[in-house]
């Protein structure tokens, strides 16, 4: 399937291994990525905090660009924060024709118009709802047997439920568990899996921020996870890049590799950990790499 692909900022900035691994995984799943390289930052909720109309207009611009991609079935993102921030703006744009016209007026000089009703799905949702876990499972070359994986969702992709279309029919806040199982892994549930990583307040209250990251990482260790997986690169910054500092704040040793979602999928599809950028993490994903080597060895 062809998708208008919004990688977000962080996946091309501080977590390039995310964007890179997505590019490697897509062809294996027959996803054609048409990158929205003209799009702009979603604002991560911060621009909306500053001026709601500004955030709505900026996102309407990206949506309009996505709607111009010929043959694309939908827009796909790889960031929980993009999903949440964009959906919030889209909710306002779709709810009120007058407001939409008002925003489109601002976009008109660039020849852009946003039409109500764009479908914008995170890679996670796309995997479950469009590709299907059965199809995915049939493509698995290296099942995640014995790998204990803890999901870390990120706030923006699980709350508020109504806005994000989470209901009995679409239990999107449980998709990661299903996905891990479809890839052959073992799901580790722990207290913080749907809590906040703390990133939004890292510059305002560093202690409180890192205490959140540290606590969840510690809980995952206590639950004996081998690694975490997240669809959010901002969570990844607090959970991986800042893990050494978080360890100091919670005064315990932390050693918890954190994978981006496409990296985990890529591993199961048989890609080389190195090609997926696993060596670029601050916390070495030793457990994951050891696991994948042992799988390769046993296969040989």
């Amino acid at each position, binding site marked *: 399937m062809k998708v208008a692909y919004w990688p977000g900022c962080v996946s091309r900035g501080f977590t390039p291994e995310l964007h890179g691994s997505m590019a490697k995984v897509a062809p294996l799943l027959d996803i054609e990525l048409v990158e929205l390289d003209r799009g*702009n930052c979603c604002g991560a909720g911060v621009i909306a905090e500053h001026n709601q109309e500004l955030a709505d*207009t900026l996102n309407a611009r990206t949506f309009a660009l996505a709607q111009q991609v010929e043959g694309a079935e939908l827009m796909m993102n790889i960031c929980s924060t993009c999903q949440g921030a964009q959906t919030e703006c889209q909710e306002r744009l779709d709810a009120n*024709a007058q407001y939409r016209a008002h925003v489109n007026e601002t976009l008109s000089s660039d020849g852009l118009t946003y039409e109500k009703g764009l479908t914008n799905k995170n890679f996670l949702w796309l995997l479950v709802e469009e590709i299907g876990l059965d199809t995915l499972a049939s493509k698995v070359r290296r099942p995640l047997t014995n790998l204990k994986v803890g999901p870390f969702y990120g706030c923006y992709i699980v*709350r508020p439920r109504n806005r994000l279309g989470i209901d009995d029919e679409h239990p999107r806040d449980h998709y990661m568990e299903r996905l891990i199982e479809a890839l052959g892994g073992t799901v580790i549930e722990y207290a913080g899996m749907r809590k*906040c990583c703390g990133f939004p307040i890292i510059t305002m209250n560093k202690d409180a921020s890192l205490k959140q990251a540290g606590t969840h990482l510690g809980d995952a260790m206590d639950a004996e996870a081998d690694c975490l997986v997240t669809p959010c690169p901002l969570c990844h910054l607090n959970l991986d890049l800042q893990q*050494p500092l978080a360890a100091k704040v919670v005064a315990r040793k932390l050693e918890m590799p954190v994978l981006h979602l496409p990296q985990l999928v890529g591993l199961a599809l048989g890609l080389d950990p190195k090609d997926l950028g696993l060596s670029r993490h601050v916390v070495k994903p030793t457990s994951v790499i050891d696991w994948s080597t042992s799988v390769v060895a046993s296969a040989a």
Partner: protein
Amino acid sequence: MSSTTTAPRSSVPQAFKLRVRRYDPESGQAAYWDEHEIELEGHRSVLEGILQAKNRFDGSIGIRCSCRQAICGSCGVRINGEPALACHTHLDEAIKSAKDGVIEIEPMGNMPVIKDLIVDMDAVHWKKVRRVTPWLIAKQPVPEREYIVDRESMVDVTQTMACIQCGACVSDCLAMEVDPGFIGPAALAKAYRFVGDPRDDARHVRLNDLSQDPQGIYDCTHCFKCVEACPKDVNPMGQIMRLRRIAGSDEQIVDVNNGHRHEEAFTTLIRDYGLLHEAELLPRSYGGDSWFGKFHPAAGKELLSSLPAIVKAVVKGKVSPTKAIFGHKIAKRDLDSVKRIYERVEGKPQRYELNLYIVGEDE
């Protein structure tokens, strides 16, 4: 609606299992779980279920309630891990989210338990509400008769007026979980009630106080928990964002917590690059204009403590040094179009805010 006109959803009493968290701090005993089987129609409330268990099996179960119709705000609990009003949750709804066929009821979080399902609202919730001066400081001179304000300006605060002080948002607040001193969602929504009221004379003082307090408006971690928890759609997080917006943009309050600077830095970075330039966000948030510029001396230490993370990212090959320093940008024509959006929207004499709670959906 009378039951004769509609087919009753569940007119036959059914059995439901309740698992209630019991704890009496005075007993010296640890908390434990209690299970009871009650019999009620599915459309009856979890509160009625608890009261039946109390009447039939164990009169010592502690639960606070009064109105039984989602008005008084006294029956806040956690049902299957999620905050809710016990009187406003149907048994047949609750059973759906029960993990093992038993409806689990616990006291709310972030507040000490007085007994079983009763938490100490005074020690946390009400104390925080008092912290924000929850009354109107009237503009002088006070008119002889009633204040006349235009309708529009009061509509703006109606959402916060819907709050019934149940504490569900406080129970689930993730910032409060790690920083109990955080003023929190309910009290900050209440603060907006007065900040947004045109008759109030203390807007600047209130906002300055809430911005400078390290546990004030900039301590919220934007987790949407309170939005999800609130049974009255008050959207406390949204109210906190409005407080930030007015404090920073209208009242020009530059707080010591880097909150406003962070917001400004982020917003201007997107104007200048179209994309987020993470490394540049730090010095700008701490008050400088770039790594090469000057920044607020008090923020120097903070900033330096962030350096290792950036250096580590470079060493790990996550970012090239050039990218870390100069960031990534979108093409010039797109950047120009982003800038035009900024000019047009920010150039308007008044900010426009669509509040769906008030206007609803038109389609």
